[in-house]
Every structure is written in structure tokens, then in C-alpha cells.
């Protein structure tokens, strides 16, 4: 079973987690001020890289905290995880 490192609980089995998609996507501060294209990009456009990707994860059946993880989409290896509001220490594509 894949182990996911929770920044609060340590390595935990993947079934305790819920994925939350790409991380570090900021909501436009004033949604009324952006045009349809910018709003559509915020809602629907994701990078889907082959390689390193920063993702949000929720330790749903554990501490129930959200955190970010840096995952290699080719090998499915998680290189590091870090708390919300923090930056990855390794070379991330955040």
C-alpha cells in the first residue's frame, strides 16, 4: 500500500487520505473584476505535468488536516509534504 507522509502524523496508509487536486491555485481576490477567461482558468485549467506536481491532500481519516505534497506523477513517489501556507523545500513547480 502506498504510504503518504502527513506533516502532522507521519507516514500513513493511502486509504486514510483524500486527494484535493493541484495546489497553490489562488482564487482571484475580486471575482467581479476578472474576465470570463481568467475565471475559467481559475476554475478548470490545471497543469497536469509529467513529473513533479504540488497537490493538496486531506488526511480525512486521521488528523483531518489539509496539507500539500510534492508528487512525481511518473513514479507516484511523494517527495515531501508540507503544511498549508508553507513552500516546498525541494525544487517544486509550485
Amino acid at each position: 500500500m502506498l504510504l503518504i507522509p502527513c506533516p502532522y502524523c507521519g507516514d500513513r496508509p493511502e486509504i486514510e487520505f483524500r486527494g484535493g487536486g493541484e495546489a497553490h491555485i489562488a482564487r482571484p481576490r475580486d471575482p467581479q473584476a476578472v474576465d470570463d477567461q481568467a475565471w475559467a482558468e481559475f476554475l478548470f485549467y490545471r497543469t497536469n505535468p509529467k513529473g513533479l506536481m504540488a497537490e493538496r491532500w486531506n488526511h480525512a481519516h486521521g488528523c483531518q488536516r489539509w496539507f500539500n505534497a510534492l508528487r512525481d506523477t511518473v513514479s507516484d513517489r511523494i517527495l515531501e509534504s508540507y503544511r498549508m501556507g508553507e513552500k516546498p523545500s525541494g525544487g517544486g513547480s509550485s
Partner: protein
Amino acid sequence: MLEIAKEAARAAALDPDAATPAIAPMPPATRFALRMRPETATEIGSVAGFQLDLPINRASLGPRLAARLGPNEWLLIAEDGETEAIEAEIASALGERFHALVDISHRNVGLSVRGAQAADMLNAGCPLDLSTDALPAGSATRTLLGKAEIVLIHEDDAPTYRVECWRSFAPYVHGFLQEAARDFDGG
């Protein structure tokens, strides 16, 4: 306090006669979910006999058991019938500090799992590493057992585990463990 406060003692979720040496439903208890800022816990240390300044996923055992399930979440367990006294004690100790205290006595059911095969029985449905290196006595964490969410508290090295699950999950969790126990001496 709502009338439901005494409901846990009145209607047992599981038949106490269904106990086996290895798996036994525990008597009704007073339980609280306490949420507050981590800094507040560090500041006050303990409240109403519950030690709160614990590392995440650790518990302070005893008649008043406190388990830290996350950075800002604690599960408090005490003897049945103390609900109102504890609630008043915590409310006065915390005063104006930002917190949420919810009575969940009736929501949860406790199961005691013990014996040499206890970890194997739990591992039938729980993928956590239950070796004493990874989960020493005094650990407590929320996790999964089969399809049900449980809180697993490792009480001592007998070993004894306390499994807390939601009331509606109790027959499933109990049945699951009994099924697992068939593979071992506990059945």
C-alpha cells in the same frame, strides 16, 4: 443540557453478553470532542484532569482519558454520569478562550480488544503499523477498520487496545473483529 445526555447509559448499542475474552463492548462513558487552538493547549496544560499538551496522536491514560487526534482536536473520555460536571469545569477553566466543546457520549461506542493476538485482529481491517515501535502504548489515532472510521487507543502492552467507533458503526466493527478473531485464539 439536552435529555440525550443520559441516552448512552439507557440504550446499549451492543449486547454486553456478546463479549468474548478478546473483544468486549465497554460500558457507557462520558465523551467530549474538544477543539481549540494549539497555543491554548500549551498555555493551560491540562483542564479538569485531562492533560492536553500532548504530542499529536498521543493520549494521557487513566480514568480521565485525553487523546490528541490532531493539532487542534482532542477526544476526552471519562466515567459515565460526569458529563455535566466536566462540562462546567472545562467551561470555567477555559473562560473566554476560543474553543468548542461537544458532548459525544452517545455518538461513540467503545470496544476493548486485548490479548496476544489483538494487533493481528485489528490488522485484519486496519492497515496501520501496530508494532510497538510505530504505535507504542499511549498512542491514539483516528484510522480505518474495514469500511468504518475508528479511533484506536493503545492502552498498554498486555496488549490492550480501545476501539472507539460511531454508534451506528458498532455492530459492523464488532462483527468485523469477531470474524477476524476466528482466525486466532480469541474467537
